[in-house]
């Protein structure tokens, strides 16, 4: 997730695959063969990680799509209703991670998986944007976007609108995660260390707001038990301050 070298850790083969100019098995065998010939240059973990995407995820989402359409395209498990903030179309936001992920998408019609999932997708999830609007954006902006693969990834994996068919828990994360995985936060006007008040990273308070407002639908998820326990352990004042900050950010969402 660094601002430089955006295409190096990622193959950018999705367009060639989705137009069928390349066959998935051809790509898989090439990577497997490369590992067998040059185990000193590419590790088994890397080869396996890549093959998992093409043989695993890519085929899996297609299977899911055909099994669950057309109903899948109408799912909205979390009842999200907000519209997509205008900066998704311009990149003009002070959130450095978002400005970069969106700006790069507008410039190159490409973002890698973590940008799609943990930056733009995560923000839409935390803010409660209607999955139809999120879907439309992802279906339009990426070079590789075709509905059979875009929709399960967006509605399912990223927005949890399918109630957990694609992933066992929502990919919701606070600014801490983005801070750990990238270098954006150091050049951001928001402070990733702050949860509340003016200048605090919006991802931080929105994360708790998301969990709090969706409690009824998420509380029985085994993988979130600890997270809710953490939240409940905080003092009432602290929780209120966090929710108030989030509510203010949501009111001014187009100005972030």
């Amino acid at each position, binding site marked *: 997730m660094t601002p*430089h*070298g*955006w295409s*190096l850790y990622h193959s*950018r*083969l999705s*367009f*060639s695959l*989705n*137009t*069928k*100019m*390349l*066959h*998935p*098995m051809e790509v*898989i065998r090439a*990577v*497997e063969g*490369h*590992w067998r010939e*040059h185990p000193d*240059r*590419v590790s*088994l*973990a*890397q080869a*396996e*990680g890549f*093959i*998992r995407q093409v*043989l*695993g*995820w890519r*085929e*899996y989402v*297609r*299977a*899911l799509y*055909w*099994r*669950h*359409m057309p109903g899948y*395209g109408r799912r909205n498990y979390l009842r999200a209703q907000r519209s997509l903030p205008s900066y998704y179309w311009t990149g003009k936001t002070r959130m450095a991670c978002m400005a970069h992920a969106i700006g790069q*998408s*507008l*410039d*190159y*019609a490409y973002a890698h998986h973590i940008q799609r999932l943990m930056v733009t997708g995560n923000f839409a999830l935390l803010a409660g944007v209607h999955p139809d609007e999120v879907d*439309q954006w992802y279906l*339009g*902006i*990426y*070079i590789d*976007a*075709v*509905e*059979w693969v875009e929709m399960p990834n967006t509605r399912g994996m990223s927005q949890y609108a399918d109630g957990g068919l694609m992933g*066992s828990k929502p990919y919701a994360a606070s600014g801490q995660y983005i801070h750990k*995985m990238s270098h954006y936060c150091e050049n951001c006007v928001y402070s990733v260390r702050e949860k509340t008040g003016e200048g605090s990273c919006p991802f931080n308070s929105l994360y708790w707001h998301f969990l709090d407002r969706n409690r009824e639908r998420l509380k029985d998820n085994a993988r979130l038990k600890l997270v809710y326990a953490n939240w409940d352990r905080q003092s009432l004042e602290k929780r209120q301050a966090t929710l108030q900050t989030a509510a203010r950010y949501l009111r001014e969402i187009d100005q972030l």
Partner: protein
Amino acid sequence: MVQVKLILGDQLNAHHSWFRQADTSVVFVMAELHQEADYVRHHRQKLLAFLAAMRQFAGALTKAGHRVRYFTLDDSARFRDLPELLRFVLEEEKADGFSYQQPDEYRLDQQLAEFCQSLTLDTQCADSEHFVTPKDAWDRYPTHRMEFFYRALRREHKVLLTENGKPEGGRWNFDGDNREALPRAQPLPEPLLFAQDVTDIDAMLDRHGVNSMGNADPKALLWPLSRSQSRQLLSRFLLSAACRNLAATRTP
């Protein structure tokens, strides 16, 4: 006996059995469609890349001796939608049969199935011969978690397996090992960016007022537009995979 066969914009599979040998009684149809360009607001580069790749695919088929009828947006503008365009071709070619490849999109799948029902001639929906699993794979494989689906496919296709059928390295999953953040100062190889001139297509999109988003340099489109360019991108990826491993072992 004339057969009309439709190739959709995401079906640029040169290895499909349809193309094994040239047959003058077969007419392939490819069409740039308002229906597809307008149903969502696409990135300009996506529109340019899809249309340019389609044109180059049609060119390659023609060169290999196939009969192709290609409709640009200019040519297809007088048809309301895909079925209307197809009806026109079937009539003009006095076709006895119509085939298409299994579409990957629900909307197109419905549209073409309905279209076929409205025809009196022989129709056929062929496999796109692209995916590893069949369309109904959800009911044939373990799917409650991706992991088990993936393992079944690794076994079935003998991918990263040892000679006695065990996963290489003794594990199916190396997730934990892949997750390091990117070290800051490391030599990065240049990405392979193509620079193709698609100004003619760009001008056509303007002419038709196709709504789009994002930025594009139609004089230097960076996406691969052919199978051979796609192969180059794959080779470069394998090379850069080598570099990144070197880099990773070098940085503290």
